[in-house]
């Protein structure tokens, strides 16, 4: 059962992420990214992190991508005419991406020590929200507060960057 869900949503994540990077229309790409995020959220649930799954949908799909769509609609970005001209650049990027992914897979394989047996069943400890909260607010409290500060800085920065420049005052004659 877990295998079936994994295969379904892993496949969905792969297909929709390919659509994200290839579709000409940025709006469709964003909607595909929503699908990707949703699939990754389901995979989070399979990995014993339901809280992260809910947060992923709430924050990423529900707020960040809506922001993307707003900007796309406000800037009225039309369909792009296809990826950058140079064939060489495309080919190199493709080669580089594939090589990098292959390298990562190799590294992971070596770290795991070859194909491993199925993972041990999920412990209640891992899935428990209380335990995660105790870690977050206990061991990682300082980091939590710093991230809060970072978000504040981001809000202020975004507001300042996005507002219209104040109208220039006409020079007053002395």
């Amino acid at each position, binding site marked *: 059962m877990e295998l079936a869900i994994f295969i379904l949503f892993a496949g969905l994540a792969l297909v929709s992420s390919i659509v994200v990077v290839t579709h000409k229309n940025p709006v469709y790409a964003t909607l595909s990214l929503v699908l990707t995020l949703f699939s990754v959220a389901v995979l989070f649930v399979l990995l014993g992190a339901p809280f992260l799954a809910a947060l992923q949908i709430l924050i990423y799909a529900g707020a960040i991508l*809506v922001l993307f769509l707003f900007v796309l609609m406000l800037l009225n970005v039309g369909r792009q005419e296809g990826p950058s001209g140079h064939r060489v650049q495309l080919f190199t990027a493709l080669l580089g991406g594939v090589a990098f992914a292959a390298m990562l897979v190799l590294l992971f394989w070596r770290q795991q020590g070859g194909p491993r047996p199925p993972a041990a069943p999920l412990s209640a400890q891992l899935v428990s929200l209380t335990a995660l909260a105790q870690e977050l607010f206990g061991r990682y409290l300082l980091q939590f507060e710093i991230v809060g500060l970072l978000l504040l800085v981001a809000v202020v920065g975004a507001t300042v960057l996005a507002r219209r420049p104040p109208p220039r005052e006409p020079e007053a004659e002395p």
Partner: protein
Amino acid sequence: MSTELAATLIKLAVALGLLLNVVPIMVWVERRGSALMQDRPGPNRLGPFGLIQPLADALKFMFKEDVTPAAVDRPLYLMAPVLGLLPALTTFSVIPFGPDLTVRGHRIQLVVASAETGVLLFLALASLGVYSLVMAGYSSNNKYSLLGSVRASAQMISYELALTLAVVAVVIPVGSFELSKVVAYQRAHVWNLLPQILGFLIFLVASFAETNRLPFDLPEAESELVAGFHTEYSAMRFATFFMAEYISMTSLSALGVTLYAGGWSLPGVDLHGWTGAVLGLLILVGKIAVCLAVFVWVRWTFPRFRYDQLMRLGWKVLLPLAILNLIVVAAMTLAGWL
């Protein structure tokens, strides 16, 4: 078929039955209720008290000519109304509608999805409702629709914040996101309406804004922006948007009564077993009905908010109040009063 699977299917049937049947009932309530408040008869020709009217409306929508404008972005245009239904229907899955039952040795919780992240799942799925609006406005290829949908989605995400903070304030004394625990807490103590009246009011106002109901229905009002994001939709697709709106009203009301008014329980009434389950469901439905009646009442009483007033209310009034509510509740919980 295992007991668990059969139980889940039955619970799913109950939840869907409730949600899908609410729509024609609400259509009737809306039209008769508004007529009552406006001192006119309302629909009274079809059946006693006009009860067959929703059926006539449904048939009208089904037989109307289905026009798809030529310049729309077809896939998004067709998907948008359906996508509005998805969050509306799935969010109900975390609402408990009765006490635990013991069937054939299994302890069954009367919740479709008894996840530890209960309410958080509700909020997450509800936040996906913005996409239907965005897609409808963008795909219509029409500047009025685009403006209407940008306004509607900005309104939704702004009020989502106040809603989430009000919900978090309820969760703090309970100590768990699961709604069954929230109901158990309210059975042991007092309904959350009393100590968290501010939170309840914030939740109420925010849920009006979340469902695009008056007084926050600027994005879809008939006289504004040529009907806003659903300008280019007709017949069945238009009906789907309104189905989605009524269903999300029901889900949010269900959440509201579960968080603040005890959900399926009544103070002093001991419910258990099968009779308890049925009674619990009826009590929950009754409370949701009261909430929906308030929705209709408010709609036909208040004038509409202007867009800047709406945004100012959301960010400058509700959000600080919600944060204040959160701080007060957290302090009271620490002091041991809650």
